[in-house]
């Protein structure tokens, strides 16, 4: 399967629809996984297993789900380092634009969006 970004997004949407039993219309690239789609930790595990299977890769679950994001931000502040730089060092698949968005947004709750998953998969050069 050749994966361009829209193929990747389509597969991720399909997986989310299966796991969460939701209407396809509810999933958009801008959907927050936790706040909008109601994803729970057990669903994230199933999502990771499904992504591994469908794309034939082994996803780094911490990275793809931005799990240590808060820790990275706190570390950057504590060490007086540039926060966006440290975030992009850790999550190298995030673009500068998306990193800025996340840093503006993260105080409002979990920031993970569907488009972040697609970006991570795309960065793994899946074929």
């Amino acid at each position: 399967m050749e994966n361009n970004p829209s193929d990747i997004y389509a597969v991720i949407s399909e997986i989310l629809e299966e796991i969460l039993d939701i209407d396809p219309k509810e999933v958009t690239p801008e959907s927050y996984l936790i706040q909008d789609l109601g994803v729970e930790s057990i669903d994230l595990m199933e999502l990771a297993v499904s992504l591994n299977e469908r794309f034939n890769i082994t996803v780094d679950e911490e990275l793809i789900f931005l799990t240590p994001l808060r820790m990275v931000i706190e570390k950057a502040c504590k060490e007086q380092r540039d926060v966006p730089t440290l975030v992009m060092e850790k999550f190298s698949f995030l673009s500068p634009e998306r990193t800025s968005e996340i840093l503006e947004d993260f105080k409002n709750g979990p920031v993970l969006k569907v488009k972040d998953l697609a970006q991570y998969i795309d960065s793994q050069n899946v074929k």
Partner: protein
Amino acid sequence: MNNIQNIKRSLILGGSCQLALTLVSCLLEKNIHPLITYRNLKGKERIQMELGAKAAMVELIHLDFCDRTSLLNLDACLKYRVDYMVDFAHSDYQSLMAGAKDDEIKNYFFTNVSVRAMVLKRVARCMLTKRFGRLVFISSTAAKNPNPGQGFYAASKLAVEALYRNLGLEMASKGITTAILRPGFVDVGRGQRYLKSEDQKFRLLKKQGRIITTQDISKAVLFLLLTAGTSINGTVLTVDGGMTIGKGDK
């Protein structure tokens, strides 16, 4: 194995014990393909010898809880579906609490509890892809009623019971459930060694009514695995003929 995705498969951990081998025959009768793990060459040979011609109908996997690299063999087998797992694997460790050696205590719990958690994690994730899985842990009545010298054995059995219980709790919504079976004295393995003393056998018969057989255990496992359904989840079934319900006769 062209139609591997259509055949129901059951992983049997600790497959060289007599209880497991009796179950394997029952699973084959039900067209469930057994994947049997063995710890060492001796165990592998025992499985092949006991199963005879049926050995060609099973898959043998080297999995030694003392050797974490053998988890790679498990990973390879989990690339395909696994519908069921029955866990007989557990090493014995008889020692008075105050007499145990530090390293032996550490290794015993690492091998029997920590490595098993690593196995459970892998199997559960494999089952998640099909949204179905049923796992049965073969515990022991000693978990609840240990004799002197069985403290570590009982503690590790209870710890593993807790792992299975939580797995059932966490994964039920994804179609993966668990059950725990506590056999009493069975006429094989450790139970047989204990029962060799006529006095012990007499006392047990008085308490338990009859000696539990490998067939009794297989029937109970099949009930939990295939018949009971997912409403029985994370709970314990004791199969001891009633031995542990009374006050004891010491």
